[in-house]
């Protein structure tokens, strides 16, 4: 079963994404901060991370992506960054950080499902 880590500080968003992806047979993990995302990613080696960029706390999703993509242990894990409308500059930073794709929030759940399937090769 493919593992997906959902990273967002808002529980509402995590819940929505969880409900969406439950349609397919994925194992879903959650983190509410970049720090926790790193910790879980190292431990669980998910196939895909949905990474919010702006989160309270010391580290943002871009920094976490950078670290994950540099670490040989986690660099094969696909990262889709999620950023709010109006923050499109993050996308370029995200690409530089090594993100595989992106979504602008609010995103279409159907598009998310399709993209996740595409990336995980279902």
């Amino acid at each position, binding site marked *: 079963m493919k593992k997906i880590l959902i990273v*967002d*500080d*808002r529980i*509402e*968003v995590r819940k*929505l994404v969880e409900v*969406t992806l439950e349609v397919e047979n994925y194992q879903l993990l959650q983190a509410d901060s970049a720090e926790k995302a790193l910790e879980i990613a190292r431990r669980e080696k998910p196939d895909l991370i949905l990474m*919010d*960029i*702006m*989160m*309270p706390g010391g580290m943002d999703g871009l920094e976490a992506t950078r670290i994950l993509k540099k670490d040989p242990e986690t660099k094969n894990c696909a990262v889709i960054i*999620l*950023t*709010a*409308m*109006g*923050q*499109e*500059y993050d*996308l*370029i930073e995200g*690409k*530089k950080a090594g993100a595989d*794709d*992106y979504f*602008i*929030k*609010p*995103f*279409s*759940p*159907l598009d998310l499902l399709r993209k996740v399937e595409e990336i995980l090769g279902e």
Partner: protein
Amino acid sequence: MESEWQCFGIIYDRNPEKIEIVNPKEKSLNSNTSAGGIDPVEQLKKYAEDLVSVYKSEKEKRKDLEIARNKLKESYRETINRLVLASEYRDEDTGDHIVRMAAYCVLIAEKHGLPGAEVEKIRIAAPMHDVGKIGIPDDILLKPGKLTGEEFEIIKSHTLIGAKILGGSSSEILQLGAEIALTHHEKWNGKGYPRGLSGTAIPLAGRIVALADVFDALTSKRPYKDAFPFEVACDIIKKDRGEHFDPELTDAFLNNMDAVLKIKAETTS
């Protein structure tokens, strides 16, 4: 900046109109979104929008499926009709007998209290009762005079031939057609053919068709006979109640003569 933009080609490919390239220096000015990102209500709205679009396309698909299903049903029925026409081709000028006896079958089945879906199956399957005639040679099928015992034995085999043509199908309609073909000459008292079944050992559809078929034969003109008047035909049927015919079905039929007359009027060209 430019080269970075181009190397991030997926953005451009996916959503060109939505992307604005923001100068890094302006980034702080644009950062009016709260640290928590977007309002979850906005995200919920997206879910609702997707739900609506899925709902609409589902509805559209259901409509298309319904149309396709009806077309298939129609062509299925037409194929059955043409099979019936082929089997009647040599000895029946018009398809009237088939249409009429199917309508009588429906009337009997309804008055007997069968559920709508069963009645519908009988409506489609009943016309196939004589497809086995396709295997009866011309000189016997079309013989104007009285048949010898041997010839009658051959005529009787149209029940077995029909069951063989229609049998073994996965289609419920054809299965019912096979059952009707095999049993529509059985008699309630066990003196029918091919197996001499009696009473409720004869499948209901076979009993219904037996009654409708004989009644229509009596009230139709044939090369060797005139049509009996309705009253005479009814008397003959009544006499055979519990002999040739299932008594309950006979009652259901004879108690609804106005509907029978209406069918006769509507289906005779």
